[in-house]
């Protein structure tokens, strides 16, 4: 036994590697990391706009670079990241907004999540239609 008796000495546990502690935290980290894919895609697009401003040759060079196998692989990665990001954010969306009511009933979280997906699908289709119409 210690000669000096310490009756108190609060012990603070380390937070190192906290996100590996629970699958819920890992899912959260995946959601946050997938933001990098969204940012990456935005940077690629902005670079395209920059090249467009630098004349036809620069623009065509960028278009050619976009068709390389590495670029396609990168875009598939971005797409996957984007889907994960959308999915995880639509899941948490009901918690981030004030309660909504419809006909005296509280709108369930699942409806809010599904509405997010519906808007995404419609927006994607509209964008795709505009692109197809432009090309024609």
């Amino acid at each position, binding site marked *: 036994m210690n000669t000096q008796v310490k009756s108190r000495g609060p012990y603070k*546990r380390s937070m190192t590697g906290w996100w590996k502690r*629970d699958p*819920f935290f890992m899912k959260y980290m995946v959601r946050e990391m997938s933001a990098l894919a969204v940012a990456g895609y935005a940077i690629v697009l902005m670079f395209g706009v920059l090249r467009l401003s630098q004349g036809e040759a620069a623009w065509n060079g960028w278009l050619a670079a976009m068709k390389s196998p590495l670029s396609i692989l990168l875009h598939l990665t971005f797409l996957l990241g984007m889907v994960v990001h959308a999915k995880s954010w639509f899941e948490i969306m009901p*918690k*981030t*907004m004030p309660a909504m009511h419809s006909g005296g009933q509280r709108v369930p979280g699942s409806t809010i999540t599904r509405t997010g997906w519906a808007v995404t699908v419609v927006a994607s289709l509209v964008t795709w239609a505009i692109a197809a119409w432009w090309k024609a």
Partner: protein
Amino acid sequence: MSAPTNTVTKTIQIEVLRYRPEQDSEPVWQSYTVPYTDDMSVLQGLQQIKDDQDGTLSFRWSCRMAICGSCGMMVNGKPKLSCQTFLRDLLPGPVRIEALAHFAIERDLIVGVDKFVDKLQSVKPWIIPKEKRELSQGEYIQTPAQLEKIEQFSSCINCMLCYAACPQYGIDDNFVGPGALALLHRYNADSRDGGMDERMPLLRAAEGVWSCTAVGYCSEVCPKGVDPANAVNQNKVNAAKDYFLGWLKPKAKVEGGKA
């Protein structure tokens, strides 16, 4: 010990993270073999240890029916009320029990709650009447729709499981945190309350709603169906509104609200 002859005593291994500040420099795991029956909670398992095996084991408990909020602990890594968690659901074991995460351990399964109690007070958890009324004017009337806005947020039992689920609180315990912010919202959202301005300095401070990164685990672990993540995140809108509208219509400084 003489067990009735027609029952076979089943046992389960319970591992407890022990910490006795007078002898341990850091927490250590200790294992106990606990006889159990199908109707026994984790709390009852701990009581068996304390009564029959090791009287030095310390833990908090009171009501045994999930309303006092005293017996929160990490059960197999998840924040749980130990009175509401059954050993039969954790078979075959071992069951690993440790003090609530993100709080400093005082002794064994007991954590320090001082900061949490200060936070509860800091959110002014009482109705600050919107308009002064004389007794003769009668009671404040509230419609069912107005009650519904605050009802779930008023179900908090201060068990702190949401804090043990919040990594932001674990990283910086100055964060007011899910429970106290949900309580803050419970009063702000009350139709009879007019105290939002008084609570705003704390709400919009760095240690207020903006410390939350919408992990959302707090709402998952709440044993009372409170949705603290929702309370915190919808107040980010209120805090932003207050910030920007403050530029348009300067108003008198309000006192208080410091954490």
